[in-house]
């Protein structure tokens, strides 16, 4: 009950006050699955590329965090090859820091921020994290190459 009212409100707000570089819509009429798009933030190797994410909203939302995964492959210390994201906000306390006052908009904001500022100290991809920490140039080059390849595959 709270879930559908709240999601409806969240979408109203998102439509009235969009966030730069972020879009989010329900996949179908129910609010179980959402599809979001994030534009890679300026100043990062992902700048200008589009990333599609899928968001699963559980029955318990907002008392449980949504599950967000990247559909677009990405080369990033905190995102694995299946698109899973390692981010504090996406886990329940005490391990994570999800709280029901956070909305989908805030989460996507945080994901966009993570693209611009990887967190190599809490990595999901250890090798990439090492590279990010000690060989930033190579990391940026590889991340960009990875995106270019993906782009070619799509078109």
């Amino acid at each position: 009950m709270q879930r559908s009212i709240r999601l409806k409100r969240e979408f109203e707000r998102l439509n009235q006050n969009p966030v730069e570089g972020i879009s989010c819509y329900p996949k179908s009429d129910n609010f179980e699955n959402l599809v979001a798009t994030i534009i890679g933030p300026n100043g990062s190797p992902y700048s200008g590329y589009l990333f599609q994410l899928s968001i699963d909203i559980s029955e318990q939302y907002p008392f449980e965090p949504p599950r967000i995964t990247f559909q677009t492959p990405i080369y990033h210390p905190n995102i694995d090859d299946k698109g899973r994201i390692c981010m504090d906000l996406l886990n329940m306390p005490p391990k994570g820091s999800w709280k029901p006052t956070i909305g989908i908009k805030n989460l996507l904001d945080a994901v966009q921020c993570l693209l611009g500022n990887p967190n190599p100290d809490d990595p999901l991809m250890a090798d990439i994290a090492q590279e990010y920490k000690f060989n930033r140039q190579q990391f940026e080059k590889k991340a960009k190459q990875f995106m270019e390849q993906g782009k070619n595959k799509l078109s």
Partner: protein
Amino acid sequence: MMSDYKFMIQLYPEMILVSKKPVTWKGFLEIPCNSGRSIRIRLKLIVHNYPSLSGAEMYFGKEIAFIRRKEFSDKVKDLMCSVTKVSTFLKQLQLLIGNFINSSYIENYEYDVLADQAMETLMELKNVLKIPSGIKISSDSSLNTIELSLNNVTVRLQRTSHRTCPWTVVYSDLPEISTLGPFERNISTLDIARNKLKLQVEMLKKVWSNLKQIDENCWVIDPLQPKPCHLYRRIYLTPSLSMFIKIDPLNHMDLPEIKFMGSDIEVESKTDLVSKNLNKWDPSCDIINNLMTLLDIDAFPKREIKKEEIDYNVIVTDEECCICFSLKLDNETLPDKICNNEKCRRHFHTSCLLQWLQTIAGNHVIFHQIHGSCPNCKESISCRID
């Protein structure tokens, strides 16, 4: 006395007579060095017993701090006793300092490089400014950062110590175009940077004018404040559908990259429609008409004007429940629980808060109260269990 002043002005125009009682000169003295270039040092000269130089005071800038040993001051004192005219004294002083610098073991590398770079920049600026180009050029006081701007498009360049790529871009309004590579590539002089900026602005002019048409005719959701570096727009179509348009900077009249974002059904139907209409794209027609033909519409939806001003920067307006984001629950109850923290003061429905506190493992239940922390500010909060 007159003739000495005259000589000073002729020979040392950078030394300025700042006071006649006592007679004081202040300014710069150029020291020729072995390497062919020269160093400018700051100097203040107070001649108490003018025209005699005995007992004169001297203050040097820190540029030559590395040669100021006892040997140096002794030599300067000797010099003061032996000459009678200030201009002659300065001439001898120049030679003296020059000798000390040349024989000095300390290689004042950093100073040389800095002076060198500033000089080079000055020379480059001189070359660039010779030919008028309509580009505004400005710099910071140290000549380290140069700003080039044309029609509100700005590029800021900073000097590096690399010989092969002396300029690096620290700020740019230009969009990154992958086929052209980064702006800083192959910029060996400011002149090249200026021509590159001019060329790219010229090239992007038509792209920007297309984007401007979109801005004027459509409800642009994203970017919130379009800048020259944004070559994309996301426009509103329906509450559950928006269209992403990215213009190819090299072929601005061609079909742009188009993506729909929204619910699956709408995305599918619009994608079908657009792929059916793709052949109707007419490169000689303007972008708005082309987009309308693609979408089979006569006008784009306009932005709704909001009546009430609400601060959307806060997660929720404070009267609503912070968990369900609404004012009334189904049974018409209003938020009835408020966080005790004065800075937080978030509103909750008791039932919403209770459900959250019960979800978190480790919250204590004492009598009929469950204790936990406020989901917004983490201060302790408790809630009645009925």
